[in-house]
C-alpha cells in the first residue's frame, strides 16, 4: 500500500495504490501524516488504484476528515472503484466526503 503526495496551487493530492487492509494501516498512518499536517487545505484523494479497504482503513479516512473540519480544509475523493465505494455507502461514510 503506497500513497504519493503532491501539492499544486494550494491543492494537496494523495494518490493511493494497493490494499488498505488492517496489516497496512500502521505504515499508512505514517505515510499520510503530511496530509494530516496540511488539513487546512483542499485535499484530493485519488483512489483509482485502491483495490481494497476495510474498517481500519475507513477510520483513517475519517481521521483525516475530522482533522480538516478542525483546521478548515476539506477532502474530495475521486475515481473510487465500485466495490470500495460500496463500503463507504454501507457505513454512511459516503455522505461525509465529497466525491468526484
Amino acid at each position, binding site marked *: 500500500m503506497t500513497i504519493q503526495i503532491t501539492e499544486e496551487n494550494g491543492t494537496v493530492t494523495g494518490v493511493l495504490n494497493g*490494499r488498505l*487492509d*488492517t*496489516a497496512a494501516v*500502521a505504515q499508512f498512518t505514517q505515510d499520510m501524516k503530511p496530509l494530516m499536517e496540511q488539513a487546512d487545505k483542499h485535499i484530493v484523494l485519488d483512489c483509482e488504484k485502491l483495490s*481494497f479497504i*476495510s*474498517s*481500519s482503513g*475507513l*477510520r483513517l479516512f*475519517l*481521521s483525516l*476528515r*475530522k482533522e480538516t*473540519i478542525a483546521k478548515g480544509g476539506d477532502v474530495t475523493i475521486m475515481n473510487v472503484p*465500485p*466495490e470500495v465505494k*460500496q*463500503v463507504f455507502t*454501507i*457505513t*454512511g*461514510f459516503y455522505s*461525509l466526503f465529497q466525491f468526484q
Partner: protein
Amino acid sequence: MEKQLTLVNKIEQIPQLAEFVEQICEELGLDVAMNFNLNLVLEEAVTNVIMYAFPQGEEHTFTLKAWTEGNKLVFELRDQGKPFNPIESAPEVDTTLSADEREIGGLGIFLIQKIMDEVSYQYEGQSNILTMVKVI
C-alpha cells in the same frame, strides 16, 4: 467445497485471507464484488480475534473454515480466546451522523452483519465460534 485456514494472532497474517477468499471464489465461480465483500467480512472477523481474543504477547492459533451447503457459503471462525460475543458487544452504528459526531470504531461487526445473510455466535467447548453465511 471445504477449506480450512489456520492463523496465528498476528496482524501480519491478514493478507493470507485475500488468497483464501480468492481460491474459494475461483472454485465457486463468484464475481469480483463477492470476492471483495467476503474478503472484507473475513478481515473484520479475523482482526477482532487477533486484536482482542488473547492476552497481549502470547502466541495462539485459531481456525477459519469454509464450506458450501446447497446455495449457502458458510464460514466458521473458531478461537480459544476469552469468551466474547461480537454480536451482542457491538456498539450501535448510526450511519446518519456527521463526520464530527461519528466515532472511530465499531464498524467491523456492523459490516459483517450488513454483508452476510446470517451471522451467529456460540461458545462451546471453550471456543468462540462465529458462523457467517452468505447465500451465493
